[in-house]
């Protein structure tokens, strides 16, 4: 259980296979990173959306002509 490479530059060079190994790892792990970050972003966006809708609904409730305005802002299903 020892590090196979003698030095960091050896590690980066991958004995001449660097231009194959690193792009492959970068793309696959990059896809994972994007997926993880998207999950985070999506949660914030969904919660912000719900808050915005709730504020608008409350604003409409408070306004006098609310009977004429539909509070349904969801897309039709």
């Amino acid at each position, binding site marked *: *259980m*020892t*590090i*196979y*490479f003698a030095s960091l530059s050896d*590690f980066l060079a*991958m*004995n*001449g*296979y660097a231009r*194959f*190994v690193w*792009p*492959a*790892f970068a*793309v*696959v*792990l990059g*896809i*994972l990173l994007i*997926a*993880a970050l*998207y*999950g*985070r972003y*999506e*949660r914030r966006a*969904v*919660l912000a*959306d*719900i*808050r915005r*809708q*709730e504020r608008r609904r409350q604003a409409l409730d408070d306004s006098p002509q609310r009977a004429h305005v539909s509070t349904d802002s*969801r897309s039709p*299903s």
Partner: protein
Amino acid sequence: MWRFIHKWGSPKWFYTTTGPWLPWLWSAALILLIVGVVWGLAIAPPDRYQHDSARILYVHVPAAILAQSCFAVMAVSAIIFLVWKIKIADIAAMVMAPFGAAMTFAALFSGAVWGIPTWGTWWVWDARLTSMLIQLFIYLGVIGLRASFTSRDSGARAAAIMTLVGVVNLPIIKYSVVWWNTLHQPATFSLDKAPAMPASMWLPLLFSVLGFYLFFAAYTLTRTRNQLLKREARSRWVKEIALGTGKAS
């Protein structure tokens, strides 16, 4: 059994129960991924013939395994959705589809890059590669079919049917190696015989594969919960979560 299914079908129960799992899932996935990748990149010995290019194995194989597993899990979700009408299963299938497509692409890309030093070409019309490409198209078909319906429920059912039809393709992918038996190596892991590579190579691979699986679980759960909130946006418990008001009622 029935009560168990219905409990899991309840959005609020699902959301509150799975919440505490998320940090564990994400950290376990991260740790396993780091162990697998670092071990594979720096500690594992290089292959005798392919030298250090063989290190691509530690991301290529997990991506390829996930690309197929993801479709199988989508098919199970599709059955659960079609039979028991549990919406959470449909949400899970919906968020899994782009991930599966991305993993299929990742497997194709890393395989192509690996092919340059190993086979001397980045693409061959080998059974495995071709069936992987076909699988990518099936993923895109399922995603496109769902998107093209204006009614969410119709799109969900159409995607579920298409997923089940597409799952017929999975055994073809698996046995295609036996059928044509060309340049590509046979499957890395098999149930009935010990792996041909030394432990110093398959052990990091095992970590990496498990890391990918846990990542898949964490990603799916996170996004399923997000989409659940979105669909249940009008119910009280969702508003309470969004507005940060008390946990009661």
